[in-house]
């Protein structure tokens, strides 16, 4: 019995412990505080890797809180789980890996990015860790109400962080707007969980999924969950908060906020596949996701074309890229009941969509961080006030090129790999969808060429004369993400084989998810 047995909980508990201790740690020295924050998140990544290894060896990992045995969800004589448990399959671990990497990069980047004189740094780091904890908790938990609690931790921490620069009225306003939308979404998640509790007297997702009898109440709960989680993930009919919140938060926060919205996306997939996938008409649900995806792709990119503010532009691209994930996974869901189609292209589409989640977290994080680097030196987001940065900020320029090439889907980078899988497999499902996806990709490229031209090329304007490269911690933070973008682009086969492929397979295989808790067959 070694301590690594507790790895699933240490993913959450280590950052949580440090964030509680930060008010004490910052009395010693600010370096101790920052180092502790970075160390706890690096420790989290390590624990995620341990758990991932365990899942490869022996299938989904279950960790029951407070029970006599951590890995026995149903002790003998029990017919239902009474305690909260973590249930980590490939999909959860995949999301947790991507999220914890993004959070670690965000904290490293913040070290120099948030200046000491802005004040409130202890609170900033605590909130940052809590936001990461909320995100990781949403991805790992197997209990519906626990999911709601972590959803609230992640959102409340991000409200505070978005309003960090409270001298700027727009950031307070963005935070307020996000707060209204997100709180209403969270309350409807709670109402839906209440409905399911009233029907099944259980809060464990696997138990609910096993005993699901599709009636009116369940359908209402399903619609509430899907709409509110799609709202929190930033899919199009409910996307109005994304551009403000992403555009006004400090860049390091935005890079992680991308992953936090993806945790809601994960919740959406979990609800659709694992909780309702057994009994629902999946064709309907799949088309729902596809339509969400198409709208997000198209409206996101067209809104992005007209923006002058570099971060708002990137935020609209984030909406548009969310569309790709929804499209890929939606195609998989639509053919879930058709084994032949699932095998020939459905699973591949889902793999592409899920691979795109991690790629998106990396390259979009990188792009937001480069925008932050520009802001750090120029104190502006307006594209018209930039020009000729390429000569002054070499690293930032290289990183921006990597990120822009990845988001536009140019060959040697990670965006190309996942988009290619999506195009190929979606083409077999419905050629029109694939064509739309390609058109959106071309528009994205056009948009980023424009940004690159106006910010990094062209004549140096007077403001840019005295600009230097950003401090080292920011370069390192961006470098980590850039390296991941390149590596994933060079070895996509490995990632698909070991990370994205198993994740897609575990989403499809809801029987395994259920039986890892309830045991036995269906």
């Amino acid at each position, binding site marked *: 019995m070694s301590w690594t047995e*507790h790895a699933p909980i240490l993913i959450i508990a280590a950052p949580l412990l440090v964030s509680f201790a930060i008010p004490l740690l910052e009395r010693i020295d600010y370096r101790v505080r920052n180092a502790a924050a970075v160390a706890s998140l690096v420790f989290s990544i390590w624990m995620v890797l341990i758990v991932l290894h365990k899942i490869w060896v022996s299938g989904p990992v279950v960790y029951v809180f407070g*029970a*006599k045995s951590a890995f026995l969800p149903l002790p003998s004589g029990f017919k239902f789980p009474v305690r909260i448990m973590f249930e980590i399959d490939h999909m959860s671990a995949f999301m947790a890996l991507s999220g914890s990497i993004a959070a670690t990069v965000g904290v490293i980047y913040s070290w120099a990015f948030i200046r000491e004189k802005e004040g409130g740094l202890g609170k900033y780091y605590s909130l940052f860790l809590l936001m990461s904890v909320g995100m990781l908790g949403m991805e790992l938990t197997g209990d519906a109400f626990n999911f709601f609690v972590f959803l609230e931790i992640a959102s409340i921490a991000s409200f505070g962080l978005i309003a960090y620069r409270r*001298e700027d009225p727009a950031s307070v306003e963005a935070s307020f707007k996000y707060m209204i939308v997100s709180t209403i979404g969270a309350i409807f998640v709670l109402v839906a969980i209440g409905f399911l509790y009233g029907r099944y007297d259980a809060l464990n997702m696997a138990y609910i999924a096993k005993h699901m009898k599709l009636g009116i109440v369940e359908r209402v709960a399903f619609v509430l969950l899907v709409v509110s989680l799609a709202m929190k993930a930033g899919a199009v009919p409910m996307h109005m908060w994304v551009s403000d919140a992403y555009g006004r938060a400090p860049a390091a926060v935005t890079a992680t906020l991308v992953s936090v919205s993806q945790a809601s996306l994960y919740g959406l997939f979990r609800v659709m596949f694992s909780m309702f996938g057994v009994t629902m008409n999946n064709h309907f649900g799949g088309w729902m996701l596809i339509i969400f995806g198409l709208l997000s792709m198209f409206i996101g990119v067209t809104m992005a074309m007209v923006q002058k503010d570099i971060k708002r532009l990137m935020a609209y691209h984030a909406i548009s890229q969310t569309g790709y994930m929804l499209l890929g996974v939606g195609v998989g869901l639509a053919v879930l009941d058709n084994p032949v189609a699932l095998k020939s292209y459905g699973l591949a589409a889902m793999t592409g969509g899920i691979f795109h989640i991690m790629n998106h977290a990396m390259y979009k994080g990188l792009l937001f961080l480069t925008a932050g680097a520009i802001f750090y030196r120029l104190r502006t987001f307006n594209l018209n006030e930039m020009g000729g940065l390429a000569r002054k900020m070499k690293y930032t320029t290289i990183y921006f090129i990597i990120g822009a090439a990845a988001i536009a889907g140019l060959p040697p980078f990670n965006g190309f790999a996942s988009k290619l899988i999506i195009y190929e497999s979606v083409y077999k499902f419905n050629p029109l969808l694939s064509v739309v996806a390609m058109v959106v990709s071309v528009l994205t490229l056009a948009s980023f060429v424009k940004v690159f031209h106006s910010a990094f090329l062209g004549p140096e304007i007077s403001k840019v004369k005295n600009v230097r490269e950003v401090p080292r911690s920011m370069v390192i933070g961006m470098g980590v993400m850039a390296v991941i973008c390149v590596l994933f682009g060079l070895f996509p086969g490995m990632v698909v084989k070991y990370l994205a492929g198993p994740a897609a397979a575990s989403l499809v295989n809801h029987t395994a998810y259920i039986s890892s808790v309830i045991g036995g067959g269906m």
Partner: protein
Amino acid sequence: MKPMSKIVRTVAASIGWFVFVFGIYVIVHGHLTPGGGFQGGAVMATGVALLIVAYGGWSAEKCVRKERLPVFESAGLLTFILLAFGGAFLGVTFFFNFLANKGGLFGDTLPVGINPGIFNSAGVIPLMNMGVGMEVLAGISLILFAMFYGTKKVREGTCLADNEKKEEDA
């Protein structure tokens, strides 16, 4: 906020202690009667609110030593999470109740069914209640103080944007 009249201050001073004591009672009996850390902490924070209303924010701040509240809050939370960690490393799993039914501190066993209650029971639950109570008391008091300052500036008409303009000009 200005202090209120002498009558109000005297009544607040005499009632305040009862509020605090009642809050402590609610916290430590959380495992026997309705209540617990959150409720008791909220009751005690009401006492702080009473002090702020009656004596004004400055005096109340000195009385409860505001600069120590964040430490108090962290201490409560750390008690809570370290007890949970204790479950993992002294017991079996995270949040395992490693003191219940073991004898010693809060370790008495209870008779099953209706009973008058034994104070020395329930294992880590009363300790966790105390940790949470500390956290809630300090947390809500901090919120109250922060809002006291925040609204005060609004009433004095010092707009944040104006201040910054002045700083930039200077």
